[in-house]
């Protein structure tokens, strides 16, 4: 049952302060959205100094969005969706198996393996991207979707999160299942996964976002236009000699909207995940 907080002056002031801070964070986003409806570079007519029209696109149009959908950008967004979706699917399979092995199974060196996993996600990917891209080129994986997807699959952080979630499942359940004669893969499928779906959603979103925001790797390995991912296409809207800020704003809105919608769609499962974590054991 919900309880109402008393409306004391302190609460009112704090709430008003929180709302003000939230609005301050929204201002840059509002400017980007409004400017995405200003054709070409005309958004700059309302800056320096900023005027009301910088945040309200009165008299604007959708020409930037129309221009974006001319093929190149749409293809790049499609590529990003494909790469991110494939990473979520195959990455989750890998992460689940790894996390299950590192939590439910008992074998010598298990903790050492886990330390390796933890260390793997502490190494900045950008630091190893260049030598790794040489390896991928040698394997003929440059300008292929496999080359773009592969490095995103083994995500140490996703394994870490799932393992911690699996460890929260009472071991008695596992032992009872073993006594009943269930094979390991059925224990995973029928006992662990149904209990951990919210964690799977969390790990899946992590995998999705890691590929959606990826920049250095696709720049090195997905270099032909057909394999450009969305962040590269967005950066390419700015040439050395010409730049169309209206399209850049519109592209930014599109690239923000897609993960935003995804997060909103799965928001409740995140909440479930947090709540469920709290009542285990």
């Amino acid at each position: 049952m919900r309880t109402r907080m008393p409306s004391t002056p302190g609460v009112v002031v704090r709430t008003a302060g929180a709302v003000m801070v939230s609005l301050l964070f929204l201002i840059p986003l509002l400017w980007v959205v409004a400017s995405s409806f200003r054709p070409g570079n005309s958004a700059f007519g309302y800056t320096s100094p900023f005027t009301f029209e910088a945040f309200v696109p009165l008299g604007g149009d959708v020409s930037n969005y129309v221009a974006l959908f001319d093929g190149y950008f749409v293809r790049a967004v499609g590529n990003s969706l494909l790469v991110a979706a494939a990473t979520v699917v195959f990455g989750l399979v890998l992460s689940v198996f790894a996390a299950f092995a590192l939590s439910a199974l008992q074998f010598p060196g298990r903790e050492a393996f886990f330390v390796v996993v933890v260390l793997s996600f502490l190494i900045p990917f950008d630091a190893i991207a260049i030598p790794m891209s040489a390896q991928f080129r040698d394997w003929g994986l440059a300008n292929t979707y496999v080359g773009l997807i592969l490095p995103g699959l083994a995500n140490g952080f996703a394994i870490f999160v799932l393992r911690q979630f699996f460890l929260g499942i009472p071991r008695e359940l596992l032992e009872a299942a073993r006594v009943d004669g269930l094979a390991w893969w059925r224990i995973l499928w029928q006992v662990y996964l149904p209990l951990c779906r919210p964690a799977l959603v969390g790990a899946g979103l992590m995998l999705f976002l890691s590929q959606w925001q990826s920049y250095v790797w696709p720049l090195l390995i997905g270099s032909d236009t057909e394999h450009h991912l969305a962040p590269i296409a967005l950066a390419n809207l700015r040439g050395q000699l010409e730049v169309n800020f209206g399209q850049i704003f519109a592209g930014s809105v599109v690239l923000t909207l897609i993960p935003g919608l995804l997060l909103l769609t799965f928001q409740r499962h995140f909440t479930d995940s947090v709540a469920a974590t709290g009542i285990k054991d």
Partner: protein
Amino acid sequence: MSNPRSTRRIGRRLGAIAVTAGMCTLAACGGAGTDAEGGSGETVTLQFVHPEVAGSFDPLVKAYEAEHPNVRIETTNVPFDQLQSTLQSRLGQGDTSIDVYTADPSRIPGIVARGQLLEISDLRDEAEAATIPSAMEPNIVDGSLWSLPIWTSSQYLYYNPDLLAQAGVEPPTKDPAKRWTWKQVTDAARKAQAAGAEHGLLIEQVNRYYQLQPLAESLGGGPGLEGDDLLTPNLTNDPWITAMNWYQDIHEQGIAPRGIAPDQMGPLFSAGKAAFYVGGPWVIPGWKEEGATFGLAPHPYFAEGEPTTPTDSWSWGINPNSENVEQAKEFLRWAALTTEGSLATIEKILIPPTNANAFDKYVTRLDESVPGVTDGAGDLMLHELENTAVHRPPSPGYIQFEEMMVNVFEDIRNGSDVEDRLAKAEDELATAFSRLR
């Protein structure tokens, strides 16, 4: 616990994604390379890497493929800010999937030293006959030709006639003999600001050596690098300090704005926010489309010095590891040394080509860009290229130099002590260059 219905929905969604992703992945895992052309030999696919917006070279590709039916050109645009690092990384790894790429002429000695350009001296005679003379020099290292110049550049002083009229300022003319000094520009800019202009002066590439080198050169300060090998930094001579003090003053006094990135300068000027703008001719088509009001005049200079202007643009070279060297060389030759090819490179970008015949046609096109405004702009550019243009120093350390100078200019623009900052840059450069000797 999670809701079973909602978890089933998640399962269905993930399942659908899995099937789609799997099918798409299997269907789409193709690589680039050589395509067979039914029955009549093989079609070679050349990979060309550049930093312009997608589609900039479509006219070139179309024209070239029409004349060379067995060659396909695939263009790849890499964002300008990441171009050098991406190319260095890929070429350094012996990447064979790049055939032709754009190279900044001032970086060519450094790229040659790394072994990342194919020598093309067999094209030298033809290149010297077809190219405007000043453009060839940066492409020759140790007596050999390593790349072909494609474009060159110069800069104008643009002004907003409405803002100047509002301030009662007579605008400058296109006559190079009546070229304005920087003092005239800043005086007029102040008046325009007093009459309502938001900014007095916008400098297009406000933190890049390309644009700011002429300030010190105008006063006789040299390029900042000296010695036979151009590996001795000299940034603390009086002209450099004077030029940088002026550069700092215009920002401190609010004539030029701080905190605005180079690519936002043009849009601000076309929006009528500034009295003056120093920049290249490539802004003209965009401003025309946006209905901007502008006039143009020669690049300013310091009264106590000589007129100097930025120059050079991209050259194109061949990856030594290319598997299609002959086809790449022919593509490069056609784009740089034939009138048709050279004109195709500038069909979408209003930048001067280095091909002499194409340059003449470009001058006409530039003059006719905005009737009543750009008339005579071509002659003015020719005058600048022949008389006032200063090349950037062809030093093997130019790559480090240019990257370091961006920080130096930004620091000075934002208030660092000029002499201290230049001295610090000299020390840092000396350390960096010691590894190159």
